[in-house]
């Protein structure tokens, strides 16, 4: 068992509990299956990998353009590109003094570095690929296990899905902060796409880039609406939304792959649901790998997590670490 971001996540490598021998008659088998309590004991990745359904990858009208070079993951700025970067002490002290004197609302200011940088990086990382470079576990899940095409627009759909997952949590923050977080995140995603289309895909015409961005924006509005509908209604509605957007409406899409993705999305939302506003607002969330299983926690475990969070945040006493975000919900 791993204790990751306060939520118990169990790794399982066993085969799917519901898979059964074909020798059992369907009618009898259904009686047995109906008695089994729905337990998720497999990670989305292993569930999808088990499927032997022959499926053709989607035929694309045009061959996807491969990135000709690799630009900086976030930016060239040392604050974002150098994990060891530390601001000079006098600059830090001056900053703390300014925050204190002018009573700056740090929850609002934090939207830039947290949503516009850290959560943006989280969304971008999930489906990022470069030719001849190893894929991250999540990218492997999307491109190799779910057999999605490696293209810029597919990467956008994966980024968009993760943006939506985060935006569900951002909506639950106090309105003025949540809205600001969403705005910063979406602005950064589109700015990054604009830069990458020019730098990595070598699209020279600004008009073409702008048209692509408008298309992506339209796709985003449609996808967010469909995912919201799926979140509030049922799994099959969420599954059809994922099939249309992530699986590009592929008629050959594997039902077990779609199911695995629904489990992946619901698992992420569950982790976010158990995270307090303060932890989320300070950028403590990272997406759970599709190779891990999210197990629901008990009320007692939840209380324990909140207690630990309160202990941790009690140590945050600098003016820049001030926050009005809740530690109870």
């Amino acid at each position, binding site marked *: 068992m791993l204790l990751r971001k306060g939520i118990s996540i169990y790794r399982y490598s066993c085969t799917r509990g519901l898979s059964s021998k074909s020798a059992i008659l*369907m009618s009898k088998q259904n009686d047995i299956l109906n008695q089994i309590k729905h337990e998720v004991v497999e990670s989305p990745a292993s569930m999808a990998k088990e499927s*032997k359904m022959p499926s053709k990858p989607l035929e694309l009208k045009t061959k996807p353009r491969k990135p000709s070079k690799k630009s900086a993951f976030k930016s060239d700025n040392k604050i974002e590109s150098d994990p060891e970067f530390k601001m000079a002490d006098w600059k830090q002290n001056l900053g703390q003094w300014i925050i204190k004197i002018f009573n700056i609302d740090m929850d609002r200011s934090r939207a830039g570095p947290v949503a516009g940088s850290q959560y943006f990086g989280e969304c971008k990382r999930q489906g990022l690929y470069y030719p001849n470079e190893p894929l991250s576990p999540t990218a492997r899940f999307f491109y190799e296990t779910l057999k999605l095409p490696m293209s810029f627009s597919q990467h956008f759909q994966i980024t968009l899905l993760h943006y939506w997952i985060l935006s*569900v949590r951002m909506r639950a*923050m106090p309105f003025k902060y949540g809205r600001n977080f969403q705005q910063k995140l979406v602005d950064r995603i589109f700015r990054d796409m604009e830069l990458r289309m020019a730098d990595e895909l070598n699209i020279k015409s600004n008009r073409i880039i702008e048209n692509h961005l408008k298309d992506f924006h339209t796709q985003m509005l449609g996808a967010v609406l469909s995912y919201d509908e799926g979140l509030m209604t049922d799994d099959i509605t969420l599954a*059809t939304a994922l*099939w*249309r957007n992530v699986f590009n*409406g592929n008629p050959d899409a594997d039902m077990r792959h779609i199911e695995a993705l629904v489990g992946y999305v619901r698992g992420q939302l569950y982790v976010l649901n158990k995270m307090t506003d303060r932890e989320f607002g300070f950028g403590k969330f990272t997406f759970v790998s599709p190779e891990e299983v999210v197990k*629901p926690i008990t009320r007692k475990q939840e209380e324990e997590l909140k207690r630990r969070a309160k202990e941790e945040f009690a140590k945050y006493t600098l003016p820049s670490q001030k926050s009005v975000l809740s530690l109870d919900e």
Partner: protein
Amino acid sequence: MSGGVRTEIIEKTLSLLKSLPKERIKHYASFKDVQLQKYSGDAIKNVSEKELELQYIALRDLVNDKYKNYYKLDDKLLKPKGNPQYYDRILSELKGEKKETFGSAMRTVLFGK
């Protein structure tokens, strides 16, 4: 492998697909129609009986809201305190209840909720 069991699995899958609710808005592709076409035609003739069965179970798990029930969300996310009416308004619009007025739309554009 008997042909009878295979036919039974396909029939069960088809009847489950037919029971899926109609989509509230028209999309570029309908999951229900595409899958009905797939399971009614030759596209699955080379698929093993066991795999068809697992596909059926996956579909049935989705229809039975396995993940929605397993990963239960609180009102914290479903009635977001920043904008408690957000999902209700979307769903009422999708259901065609036409509660939105020009005034409420303008208020959303100007104030975000």
